[in-house]
């Protein structure tokens, strides 16, 4: 006899659990909980109800006579029912034979994440992620299992797939983090191969939230906080600076060429502390806020999820010209008018506006670089009447402080393009960049007979972006001037789309389960076009007045435009999975891709993969025990490709712009010549990967996932530089070499309830060894995409047996203590090796043993690539309180500390210079100071520039309090949580620069990176 049974399902901490399935055993009758965690079902007294939710341990309860049931579910450490998203579908985690790491919405809740890359950093194994810089809104460098390619232009970036739409790497910033339901990182070839030609760098699949059947769910989460730089460099104060300047001058003085000896500063101690330029550019109270609001719900015919998000973040460096805000709207819905048909859309729109410093990791031109170099003697604002009456303050168009009318201080010693940061800010006020992104897809799914599904999905990325800037008349330094006020506007648009059709069928026969999918895809991207215009001599006085209705003379209007070359990929793919009793597992994939980037000889590539798994704990001989609860062994092999070599690299194109002037017309005549050599045999870059791993549940509370991989890329695509004597502007793109990545990855989870304390720990560790195994015949190394620093030339090199772009330079053999030592340092033939050296200069090792110190004495000095990366998250919940600590780190890498410019002789120093060599301070590694660096102490790249890059950072620390249900009910809310949070609270590192986390093509090259901020925030989370 059925009675109405009602009840409520909650989490340990009392929050309601929506979407929980309540099923009456032995029947198909089921119900699910609504947003309040409440369900109702008809069931007989004494019947068994199974209450289950993915990620939670299922419970079976007996229906009591009164029909009232309240259940509290606990998290299931075994996670065996969990589903992961794979390419073109989902798979039960227990059956996955590839190497896939997941991050779920729950792990990201209330985290201070502005971009999706940050959601992955430290949370999964197999990824090397470094923030590009601390400019709000900027992207991070993401590498999945190392490097597969040499070139810089995106070739090593993973493929991002959002709800099935392929989004280019730079464009992923449009996503709102609270819209993310899950992120899956496909790390091994068996998982990636379904994305074929573009999968070799790894695939990251993002699924956004969908509405659930049940009551309306309304959620708000927001936080507000303040940010400050975590660290300042230790720079010399004014009197120290004057003292060192005097010493550098004296050490370089040469009576033959330098006239009379006059110290630059006659009385160094009179200058006192001087100006602290860092505090001029840094903001110790930069604000940030994020607000996210979502409404979702649905019926058995349709569901919807819609959200609005807004974030606004000020930068900590030169805040008036460094800030970012973004608004997001998302509408995801599905409709299922009949059992056999469903359709819907996932649509995200974002609009962002940002002011950016531009040079965020560059020694040139940025306010941060100026703050590091400007002499501390120059005042921020020049109020001295004598000084104001003289050059340079009498030069036209110098920038004045709007508040006081006095000019901003102009440094005498430090010139180049460097300038007073406050003056620089005045020249860029108001300038901004903007974008509108619409990324989404519409799909139709038909199931004409059971288990046979046809799905068609049309996805698009529609982007509009541009910038507006006004440049006033200014004179910041002799090489940083503008003599025509101008207004510039740029507008671009991109319309990329892809269309995919799949047909799938699944069948179970006894204990045999089989699934097959066959698909076809057409992808078109890089469909960009742009226009820009500049009005010179515009009459506007500042940015806010500027517009294009102020028409200058026709000659003052400059316009330009651009068209990109389309990139088209055409694909066929299939996947077959089979398992017997969830014990023996098999997946096979093959994809065929054609790419417009290759010549007709090698246009199509085939990318197969296979993987197998075995679950011994399901075998009859495996006795149930409390040590190994579940064990799965898996292995895979597969081939993936990469076509990111740029368009038309297989042919030689001619370029214009080789212009010259004939006659007296004062005009250019256009010249053309070939841009590069051709290579019609250019073919696919292939990555072959073997992956062996296991997934296990141990001692009931531990989960362990471990993988070993070996990934070999054959025929790395690159446009290698060619000898200059060939005279061609560039070489042909070639398949220049082979490269290998190997590593081991661990992910460990632990969950335990101790009394009222819930404890959860997740940790991961990955190792990575990257090695170039082969280059074109005759080549021992290449220096393409090598890093260089002003007059120093290249200081990284990619060589056989070495990792991608290792540091390459001179070994230091010590510091010369006496002139006798200099004279005694000779080659085998007796030549003095460093004739211009003086005591206190660096003694460079004569590695090639010949008669001079030259380029062939250089050697490999270390790698910028971390040998290991790790992350750890600790979750604690006690009664109404919760606590999260999350940290990540890297180790085994070197950083190039390039914070002082070579060409700014009189720039300020970091205070390490106080330990320079002097006759009275002989035991040091810091060479003497000298205006003229004839010995190349600094202009030669030596080991002195490198520092260890190991760090561990406490990325997030959060403490929350959930108001008890009796309080929240009063305002009609299901959940009210307040929290305090800190980001980047604490970093352990020996690195002396601002921030050891440095992204880029070659990691670990610090040219004065915009550091990440330390922030403190307070947040509120309300659910109705």
């Amino acid at each position, binding site marked *: 006899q059925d009675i109405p049974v009602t009840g409520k399902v909650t989490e340990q901490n009392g929050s309601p659990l929506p979407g929980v399935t309540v099923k009456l055993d032995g029947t198909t009758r089921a119900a699910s909980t609504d947003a309040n965690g409440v369900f109702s079902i008809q069931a007989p007294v004494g019947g068994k109800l199974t209450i289950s939710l993915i990620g939670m341990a299922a419970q079976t309860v007996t229906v009591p006579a009164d029909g009232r049931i309240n259940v509290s579910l606990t998290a299931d450490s075994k996670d065996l029912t969990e589903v992961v998203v794979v390419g073109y579908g989902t798979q039960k985690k227990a059956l996955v034979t590839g190497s896939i790491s997941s991050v779920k919405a729950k792990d990201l809740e209330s985290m201070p994440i502005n971009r999706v890359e940050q959601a992955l950093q430290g949370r999964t194994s197999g990824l090397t992620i470094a923030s590009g810089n601390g400019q709000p809104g900027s992207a991070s460098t993401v590498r999945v299992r190392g490097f597969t390619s040499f070139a810089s232009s995106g070739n090593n970036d993973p493929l991002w797939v959002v709800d099935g739409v392929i989004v280019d790497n730079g464009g992923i910033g449009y996503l709102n983090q609270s819209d993310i339901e899950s992120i899956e990182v496909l790390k091994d070839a068996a998982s990636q191969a379904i994305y074929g030609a573009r999968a070799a760098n790894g695939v990251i699949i993002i699924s956004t939230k969908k509405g659930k059947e049940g009551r309306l769910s309304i959620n708000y989460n927001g936080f507000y906080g303040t940010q400050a730089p975590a660290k300042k460099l230790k720079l010399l104060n004014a009197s120290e600076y004057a003292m060192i300047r005097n010493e550098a001058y004296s050490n370089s003085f040469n009576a*033959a060429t*330098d006239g009379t000896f006059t110290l630059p500063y006659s009385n160094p101690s009179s200058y006192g502390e001087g100006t602290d330029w860092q505090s001029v550019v840094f903001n110790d109270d930069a604000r940030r806020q994020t607000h996210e609001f979502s409404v979702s719900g649905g019926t058995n015919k349709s569901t919807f999820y819609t959200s609005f998000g807004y974030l606004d973040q000020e930068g900590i460096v030169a805040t008036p010209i460094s800030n970012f805000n973004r608004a997001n709207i998302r509408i995801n819905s599905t409709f299922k008018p009949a059992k056999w048909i469903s359709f819907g859309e996932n649509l995200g729109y974002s609009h962002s506006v940002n002011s950016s410093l531009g040079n965020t990791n560059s020694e040139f031109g940025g306010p941060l670089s100026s703050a590091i170099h400007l002499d501390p003697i120059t005042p921020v604002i020049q109020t001295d009447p004598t000084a104001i009456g003289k*050059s*340079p303050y009498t030069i036209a168009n110098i920038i004045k402080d709007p508040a006081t009318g006095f000019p901003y201080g102009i440094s005498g010693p430090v*010139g180049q393009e460097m300038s007073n940061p406050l003056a620089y800010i005045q020249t860029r006020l108001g300038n901004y960049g903007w974008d509108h992104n619409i990324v989404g897809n519409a799909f139709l799914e038909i199931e004409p007979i059971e288990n046979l599904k046809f799905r068609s999905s049309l996805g698009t990325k529609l982007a509009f972006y541009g910038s507006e800037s006004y440049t006033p008349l200014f004179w910041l330094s*002799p090489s940083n*001037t503008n*003599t025509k006020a101008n207004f510039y506007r740029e507008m671009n648009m991109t319309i990329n789309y892809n269309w995919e059709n799949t047909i799938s069928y699944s069948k179970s026969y006894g204990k045999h389960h089989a699934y097959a999918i066959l698909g076809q895809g*057409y992808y078109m991207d890089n469909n960009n076009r742009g226009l820009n215009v500049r009005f*010179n001599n515009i009459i506007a006085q500042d940015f806010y007045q500027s517009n294009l209705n102020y028409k200058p003379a026709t*000659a003052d209007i400059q316009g330009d435009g651009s*068209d990109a*070359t*389309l990139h088209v990929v*055409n694909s066929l793919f299939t996947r077959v999975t089979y398992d017997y009793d969830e014990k023996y597992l098999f997946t096979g994939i093959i994809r065929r891709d*054609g*790419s417009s980037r290759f010549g*007709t000889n090698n*246009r199509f590539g085939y990318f197969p993969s296979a993987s197998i798994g075995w679950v011994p704990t399901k075998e009859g001989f495996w006795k149930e025990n409390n040590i190994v609860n579940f064990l799965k062994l898996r292995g895979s092999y597969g081939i993936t490709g990469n076509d990111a070599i740029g*368009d*038309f690299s297989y*042919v*030689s*194109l*001619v370029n*214009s712009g*080789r*212009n*010259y*002037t*004939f*006659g*007296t017309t004062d*005009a*250019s005549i256009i*010249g*053309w*010549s070939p841009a590069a*050599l*051709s290579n019609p045999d250019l073919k696919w870059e292939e990555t072959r990967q073997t992956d062996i791993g296991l997934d296990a549940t141990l001692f009931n509370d531990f989960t362990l996932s471990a993988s070993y991989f070996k990934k070999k890329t054959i025929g790395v695509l690159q446009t290698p530089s060619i*000898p*200059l*004597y*060939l*005279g061609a*502007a560039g070489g042909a793109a070639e398949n220049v070499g082979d490269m290998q990545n190997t590593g081991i990855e661990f992910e460990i989870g632990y969950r335990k309830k101790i009394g009222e304390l819930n404890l959860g720990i997740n940790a991961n560790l990955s190792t990575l060894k990257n090695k170039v195994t082969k280059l074109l015949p*005759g*080549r021992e*190394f290449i220096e393409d995409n090598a890093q260089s620093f002003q*007059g120093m*030339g290249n200081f990284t090199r990619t060589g056989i047996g070495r990792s991608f772009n290792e540091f390459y330079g001179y070994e230091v053999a010590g510091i010369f203590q006496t002139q006798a030592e200099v004279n005694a340092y000779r080659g085998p033939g007796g030549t003095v090796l460093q004739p211009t050296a003086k005591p206190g200069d660096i003694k460079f090792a004569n590695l090639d043993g010949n*008669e*001079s110190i*030259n*380029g062939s004495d250089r050697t490999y000095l270390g790698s910028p690539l971390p040998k290991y990366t790790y992350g750890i998250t600790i979750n604690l919940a006690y009664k109404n309180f919760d606590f999260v600590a999350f940290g990540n780190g890297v180790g085994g890498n070197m950083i190039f500390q390039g914070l002082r410019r070579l060409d700014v*002789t009189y720039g300020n120093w970091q205070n390490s210079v106080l330990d320079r060599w002097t006759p009275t301070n002989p035991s040091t590694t810091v060479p003497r100071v000298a*205006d*003229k*660096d*004839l010995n190349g102490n600094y202009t030669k790249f030596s080991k002195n520039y490198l520092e260890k890059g190991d760090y561990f950072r406490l990325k997030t620390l959060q403490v929350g309090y959930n108001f008890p249900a009796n309080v929240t009910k009063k305002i009609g809310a299901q959940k009210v949580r307040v929290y305090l949070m800190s980001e980047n609270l604490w970093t352990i590192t020996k690195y002396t620069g601002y921030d050891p986390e440095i992204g880029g093509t070659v990691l670990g090259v610090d040219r004065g990176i915009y550091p990440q901020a330390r922030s403190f925030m307070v947040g509120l989370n309300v659910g109705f």
Partner: protein
Amino acid sequence: CQKQLDVNPRERILETSYYQNQQEAFTGLVAVYDQLGNQSSGYLTKLNLFSSASDDHFAGADSPSDLGDMQVMNNYTVNSLSGGPSYLWSKGFTGVYRANILLKKIEGITMDASTKARYIAEAKALRAIFYFDLVRIFKNIPLILAPVEPSGMFDVTQVAPADVYKQIETDLTESLSALPVTIPTADAGRLSQGAVHAVLGKVYLWEEKWGPAAAAFALVNGTAPGASTYGYKLLPKFADLWNWKNKFNSESILELSYNTTSNMGWSNVGSREGNVMGILVGPRNYVPVIAAQAPDYVSGWSVMPITKELFDLIHYDPRNKPTVANLDSLEKAGIVTYKHANDNTGYFVEKYAGRVSTKAAVGQLELNFGQNMYEIRLADTYLMEAEALLKSGAAVGSGTRAYIFLNAVRARVGLNPVAVTMDNIMKERRLEMVAEGQRWFDLVRWGLAPTKLAFKGFQANKNETLPIPQAELNNTKILQSKEWGGTK
């Protein structure tokens, strides 16, 4: 689906479908000329690098490490990783390649035969000009006379310098007949027979082939000053040579041309047609105090300040004022102020210092000066002929060609005749052509560099050439010169 993958290259032209007609051949020729006036993205030119290395100038600039590639030329710490050698090597071989590709492709083009012959002659002569600089700067270079096939690109080897000189002479001689005698104004800047004879003479002079050198210059200079077959005449006023409007004047033989309209900006320095020397040599932080008396210099970067030694030599010469911007005296008179930057002497280059009145109207104004630069001008060939005659043992007394042409240069600025001696010729060349990029090469040619440049660190049997750029040794068969620690 093959067809869907054939995407439109959007105006990107394939090499295989280019070079089809006369007009396309012409654009290929322009690309060769483009390398003549090439400047690096780091503001380097042949002129400023070797001027920095000479005893007429210091590198100057803001500080001892500002524009470091010029500083290392100045203080002789240049090495194979420095930017200067790499730029000069690349500039020359890029010119050679563009000439070679045109010479190869033009064979298949159907076009007017005499025009074709002229283009071929120009390409060959330009190739010779590039090789002449390469061989005297680097000595040990490969001799590439056709585009190198990719399969053999690492197999190129160096040849004896004599072979390079031989090819230069061949290319120049062969090109003569197809070149016009004179060039109409609209085409000015393109090579004429006169220009090629002048280059040939200079090549012979470097080879110390005194007789052929004198003969080649005689063709250029004519039977008497002002009587050149090619119409060359000294300008009556020395100062007029430096008026930027006087492009391709009667004294100009081989001129590097620039313009004010190519819209060069900070981000594309060197890839457009503005002359960067205007801003480089101007005094730093220049401010007129008494506007009526102050020259209208553009505040520049204080590159190539003139040494005190040269200033003392030219101070009372009539060419002083058009040659030297004497900021020292202007400042002392309270008329202007400027920054005493690195190696400041107070004397700057007047000949092409940027002026407010000559600034461009578009682009980054200070980067788009339109002043042309002389590679060879008539006063130069007059003096070179006098030198060749003297060295060849010809009579040089009063009334001889050597005497007449040497003193024609002096007479133009109102100086009395002097005897034809090496000392007089050397002094005349130095004062006449300050900041024109000749001095360092002259000192090396005369064997005087080790003594005259010792104060800067010049080492004999080493610094007469530059090291071959390190990148060229990587993975190739190119060997470093012995002088620079190599084996070649």
